[in-house]
């Protein structure tokens, strides 16, 4: 599936706590082996502003919670061969999506965070990206090829899925993944 000698890998951080990226860094010494096989073309841990073209594998942490993230996800999808949901927020919405249980949850959370807690000139900021009504898992917005569930996903599981994908194999999740 992936033929180039060095795989172009990207990671993206949407609405999540960065725990999934921490778990990715928990690959520890395995990162050294991984570094021989990949080129990191975009990541919150590598300061590259624009999401590049022709990416082989993109790991995405976090749910889609606002318009900017949605646009970012759609762009990443169009430029990536294999898109992987990394962690529960990307897979289920998780804590990010707790607000979905409320009606008009986009307005409700802003009001709660900026207006209800303030007694001096409360105002809801209009410079931040517009929140989506519901925080959504990635596969409700774009096609996702693989899922690595967990909050955060185990480093061994991330390693397994990456190893399989880099070898051009399909990861088998039965009995391996931990839902939620």
């Amino acid at each position, binding site marked *: 599936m992936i033929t180039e000698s060095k795989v172009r890998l990207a990671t993206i951080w949407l609405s999540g706590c960065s725990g999934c990226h921490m778990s990715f860094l928990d690959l520890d010494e395995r990162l050294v082996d991984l570094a021989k096989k990949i080129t990191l073309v975009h990541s919150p841990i590598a300061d590259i502003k624009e999401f590049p073209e022709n990416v082989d594998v993109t790991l995405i942490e976090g749910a889609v919670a606002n318009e900017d993230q949605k646009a970012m996800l759609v762009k990443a999808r169009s430029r990536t061969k294999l898109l992987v949901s990394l962690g*529960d927020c990307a897979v289920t919405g998780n804590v990010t*999506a707790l607000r*979905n249980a409320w009606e008009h949850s986009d307005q409700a959370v802003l009001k709660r965070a900026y207006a209800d807690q303030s007694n001096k000139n409360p105002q809801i900021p209009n410079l931040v990206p517009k929140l989506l009504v519901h925080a959504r898992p990635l596969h409700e917005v774009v096609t996702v090829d693989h899922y690595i569930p967990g909050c955060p996903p185990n480093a061994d599981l991330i390693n397994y899925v990456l190893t399989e994908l880099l070898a051009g194999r399909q990861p088998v*999740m039965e009995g391996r993944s931990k839902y*939620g």
Partner: protein
Amino acid sequence: MSRRIDQNTVKLRINGIQLEVPEGITILKAAETNGVEIPTLCELQGLTPYGGCRLCVVEISGTTKLFPACTTPAASGMEITTHSPKLFEYRKLVLQTLLAERTHICAVCVANEHCELQAQANNHGVDHVMYERNWSCEEVDSTHDFLVIDRNRCILCTRCIRVCDQIEGAHTLDLKLRGKNTNVIMDQDQKWGDAKSCTSCRKCAKVCPVGAIYIEGEMIELTKDRDIAAFLTKRRNRQK
């Protein structure tokens, strides 16, 4: 050819193996006693079968319909398949609909890693839910001294209701309404703290497969006791 005539047993095949089992037992029981494990969720030994979760569906040759193993009686001549790619997909589908129906967020749930729904999802490789989720906002009732019900995590397996009725004999818990509005209630849909028939025996929390009913301040692994209903039934029968 001579045939042994025994009215109390039936002959059937499970996964191609010829078996003779007592008449009147369910397919699930027949499979279990012969070492075939069928995944279950609402079923619990010591309580009457409910057939609600549909995780234990099996194939019976001669019909395309799937049957719940926990409520279907074993009958003579049945050829039963308990594990196949088709059944595996159906079970995955059942688990995903259960996960989509209410707000199951494992990361903030007391039963995380001690949850039968989560365990079954793991066993079946459910790494995501393909349906759009319902994002329910059901009532949480913590008015009881120490028992709490978070209906957002409830899968309506009715284990709590059955154990309350059949083992404790209180019948405090029951269901109200139908379809997606169905919910577990106490007495006449009162707050748990006001439900006079509740004996505070904790059995509902012990048998809950998920984190819907739990004991405040107690570690969930100490609360859960899957064998409580079977144990008490056995003890009571011995006393008789």
